[in-house]
């Protein structure tokens, strides 16, 4: 009998219950799919990293000869007539000298720190065309001890016309072992599919491009690597000696190297776990599981909040019946059981469905990971641990909390339940607000006071609305992230080709071409940056600030930095900083910040930079051009079209992810707004009826009841905007600090307006549904349900 009664009561709330079920399903689904998806990669990845001796840390070095390097070059490298501005350029002039300089640096590091082993890591980037699309390969020189190449299929290249590429790239481009790949006009036969443990992401720069459709890692023979006519990049890979740990390394090296004068050439040291390229998978595995758990808990807690309100609402409406049952001798447990039973009956299938949908989604999720990460994998398998966390824990949690809520109400005496005493004291907020609302008309006053009468429900409403608003705003702020990261720069510049001149010569320009200096390594405020010398009146590389105002002319007064450099290095407009180029240092003021979100770049007047480098004002080492540059006239020619094409694939991938996120966020946010609105309006059922009896018309009642919730809902959405804005900035800042990568979230006015429109539509939809339901109850019946 009791069960039937509870069933009929709950049946009336089927829409809210369905939506609630959806939230619970979503909560369990998110955790399961993430956990099992990652699990399919975790074990084989661990074994692979172990076998291939993955680096524990990576060090970046200046590509600029310092005093000690210059001394070495002068004394030990007779073939080098003039010291070039970069060490990479030295390799073209005298390869032995280049290795001599770098070996000296490596020896310096190991002499300073006993417990580490280091190895040079060299690479070259090649743009090439495949099926009419511009692709990019990062060719790594094979290591001896650290970050060993690992072939998942096929063999290591044994001749100079063989290449190993990544399986993900091959799969995406329908390439098989034995096929030909043409790089720098030379045909290479694919000998096998390779993985490198320091590249679990094919991420070649600090721009968030890591798609495996247009990017591949590559391995050639050592001899062929040296033959590739591309700029060489280098850094240091390192591992620990027995017993040495990350925490020791952080204390001994990371906290020390910046103050160590012998290690001025080291520009950054990153632990693998903090290195997005090699260690993001650790973050993904641990962080992803944690994030999934937190997200799932967050959603579950919202569900719980709603369950709590619903259950207490149902119980309040049933208090008379419960009072009678108690007076008849039913125990609390007997009365509680039907409620718990139906909560269990409703939530368990939702949780289980979420779990099994998660199991189904895990394999595709793993494959999504594998479209991004370069890792080995195994088939997804269910685990007891995942089942426990995804099903048992939330289920038990839901039941226990529901039980506690029910018990709290049931603990009242039968007589109290049957004849609720008038004890609803005006709470603290009601009393305080009375003072502020004194001058308002009673109807306006009621708009506020009706909300304050139950602080728990009011808080639940505000928290729920904040959560919904934040989710919706966050999803909107991600629209165009990739555009901002990649395309803004190229949209604002007018050159299509960059030609890098021979190191020994000054560039010559014709027509509309413009001379520039591009220095891959300079020191600004003790940080390694990419420095570009531009003419303040140049036409091909205008510099624009965040307000789209041109600031190129400001180069006459100081240096201009990118937004990303500012955020990553913590410098800002107006700061005066020491710039070190080669052996020269000079203080410059930051006179502008461009709206660029990738690259640790700074811009300086070309003549100023030329003076620092050569004591003349005419030096340049690269040319910007709108028309195609001949490969014969330049050492390397790069087409911006190639870069953009290559980025577009990543953009599509990112956009899909962002739209899925936007859809999910808006869906969850909308459900929260809808359920809370329906529940809060229903909660005012008695007041609405009373006002109707007194003679208030619908418009006036809406103003008093809906008006209050609408005002506070809008208020919450508006308050959330600056909070979200601040949180986006913090997220951007910490991501920049932690990973050195920028995620340019952006708030625009229309985001706020649209989120408000979404809220208002859902609010009125919820209110309409709730009011339609209420209108079915007669006024005289309502008057008997005096709420105290």
């Amino acid at each position: 009998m009791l069960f039937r009664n509870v069933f009929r009561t709950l049946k009336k709330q089927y829409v809210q219950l369905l939506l609630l079920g959806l939230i619970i399903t979503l909560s369990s689904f998110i955790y399961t799919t993430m956990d099992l998806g990652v699990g399919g990669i975790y074990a084989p990845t661990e074994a692979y990293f172990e076998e291939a001796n993955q680096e524990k840390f990576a060090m970046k070095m200046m590509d600029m000869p310092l005093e000690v390097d210059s001394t070495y070059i002068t004394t030990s490298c007779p073939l080098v007539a003039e010291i070039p501005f970069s060490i990479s350029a030295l390799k073209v002039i005298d390869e032995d000298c280049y290795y001599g300089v770098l070996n000296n640096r490596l020896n310096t590091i190991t002499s300073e720190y006993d417990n580490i082993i280091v190895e040079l890591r060299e690479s070259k980037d090649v743009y090439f065309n495949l099926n009419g699309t511009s692709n990019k390969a990062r060719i790594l020189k094979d290591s001896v001890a650290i970050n060993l190449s690992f072939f998942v299929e096929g063999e290591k290249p044994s001749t100079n016309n063989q290449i190993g590429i990544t399986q993900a790239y091959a799969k995406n481009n329908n390439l098989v072992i034995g096929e030909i790949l043409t790089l720098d006009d030379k045909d290479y036969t694919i000998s096998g599919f390779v993985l490198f443990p320091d590249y679990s992401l094919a991420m070649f720069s600090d721009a968030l491009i890591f798609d495996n459709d247009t990017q591949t890692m590559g391995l050639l023979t050592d001899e062929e690597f040296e033959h590739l006519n591309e700029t060489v990049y280098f850094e240091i890979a390192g591992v620990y000696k027995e017993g040495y740990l990350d925490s020791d390394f952080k204390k001994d090296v990371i906290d020390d190297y910046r103050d160590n004068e012998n290690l001025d050439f080291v520009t950054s040291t990153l632990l693998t776990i903090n290195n997005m390229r090699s260690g993001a998978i650790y973050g993904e595995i641990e962080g992803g599981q944690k994030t999934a758990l937190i997200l799932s808990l967050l959603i579950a807690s919202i569900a719980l909040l709603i369950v709590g309100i619903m259950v207490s609402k149902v119980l309040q409406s049933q208090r008379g019946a419960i009072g009678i049952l108690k007076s008849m001798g039913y125990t609390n447990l007997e009365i509680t059981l039907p409620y718990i039973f139906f909560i269990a009956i409703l939530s368990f299938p939702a949780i289980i469905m979420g779990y099994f949908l998660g199991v189904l989604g895990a394999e595709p999720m793993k494959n999504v990971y594998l479209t991004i990460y370069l890792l080995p994998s195994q088939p997804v398998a269910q685990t007891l641990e995942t089942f426990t966390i995804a099903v048992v824990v939330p289920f038990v949690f839901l039941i226990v909390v529901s039980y506690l809520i029910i018990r709290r109400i049931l603990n009242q005496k039968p007589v109290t339940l049957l004849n609720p005493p008038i004890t609803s004291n005006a709470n603290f907020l009601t009393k305080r607000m009375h003072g502020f609302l004194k001058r308002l008309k009673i109807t306006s006053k009621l708009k506020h006071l009706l909300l304050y009468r139950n602080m728990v429900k009011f808080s639940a409403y505000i928290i729920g609305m904040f959560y919904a608003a934040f989710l919706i705003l966050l999803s909107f702020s991600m629209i165009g992230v990739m555009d901002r990261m990649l395309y803004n720069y190229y949209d604002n510049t007018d050159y299509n080709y960059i030609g890098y001149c021979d190191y020994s010569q000054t560039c010559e320009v014709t027509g509309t071409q413009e001379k520039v200096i591009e220095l891959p390594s300079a020191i600004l405020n003790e940080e390694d940056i990419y420095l570009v010398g531009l003419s303040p009146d140049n036409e091909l590389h205008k510099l624009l600030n965040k307000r789209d105002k041109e600031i190129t002319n400001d180069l006459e007064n100081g240096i201009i930095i990118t937004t990303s450099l500012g955020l990553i290095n913590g410098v800002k407009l107006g700061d005066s900083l020491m710039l070190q180029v080669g052996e020269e240092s000079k203080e410059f003021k930051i006179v502008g910040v461009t709206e660029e979100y990738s690259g640790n770049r700074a811009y300086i007047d070309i003549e100023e930079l030329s003076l620092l480098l050569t004591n003349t004002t005419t030096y340049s080492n690269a040319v910007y051009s709108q028309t195609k540059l001949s490969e014969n006239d330049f050492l390397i020619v790069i087409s911006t079209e190639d870069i953009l094409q290559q980025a577009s694939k990543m953009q599509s991938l990112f956009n899909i992810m962002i739209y899925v996120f936007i859809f999910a966020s808006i869906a969850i946010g909308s459900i929260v707004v809808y359920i809370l609105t329906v529940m809060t309006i229903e909660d005012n059922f008695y007041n609405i009826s009373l006002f109707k009896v007194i003679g208030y018309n619908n418009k006036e009642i809406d103003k008093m009841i809906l008006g209050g919730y609408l005002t506070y809902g809008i208020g919450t959405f508006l308050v959330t905007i600056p909070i979200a804005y601040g949180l986006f900035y913090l997220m951007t800042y910490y991501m920049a600090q932690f990973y050195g990568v920028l995620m340019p979230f952006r708030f625009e006015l229309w985001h706020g307006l649209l989120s408000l429109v979404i809220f208002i539509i859902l609010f009125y939809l919820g209110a309409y549904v709730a009011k339609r339901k209420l209108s079915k109850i007669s006024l005289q019946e309502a008057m008997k349900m005096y709420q105290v």
Partner: protein
Amino acid sequence: MSIKLENVTKTYFTGEVETHAVKNVDLEIKNGEFVVLLGPSGSGKSTMLNIISGLDNPTSGKISIDGEIISDMNAKQLTKFRRDNLGFIFQQYNLLQTLSVKENVEVGREVSKLPFTVEEVLEQVGLTPQTTKYPFQLSGGEQQRVSIARAVVKNPKIMFCDEPTGALDEEMAKEILSILQKLNETYKTSVVLITHNPSIGAMADRIIKLNSGEVVEIIVNKTKLNASEISWG
């Protein structure tokens, strides 16, 4: 304001069960009259009050107030009618707990075109010293007086009182009835009061006895007593 009921019936349908709460009632309540609807539980007096006051519609028959047929009105028109003409007092007081005494009365005043002042009405019901108090700080009788003040402040033409003393002891009940009587006399407001207590009939102009949904007797009371003089059965 006079109320006229012509052949009014109200039937409730619960599943397959049909209940005639009010059956073929013909009745007239005159302007300024104090009428008591008397009957035991289940006699149909509450249903009668609800349909007379427009809180509910009759299943058949016609109800008119001053010539306006309210039984044909839709919910919106009924609300307007209640707003302009009627006041309600219920057994459960039905006060808003977050509002003070004065504010609860203001809620009633707000909808009226020709309201009395809150102060005046509070004085009439003897609540001037309690103006700033909240319902939980008042006794049951005091709360019912707030409820009366809220109904009266809008200057209604008819007051409907559904067991207004049902939850009160004799002393408090008489106080409440005195107030209603005073308001009836002072403002010439028609009062329709339903009760199961026959003693209250002594203060009415007419007593309409109901049983099983039918008017079984109408007594014209020629010896009206003051509320304080009623002997409580």
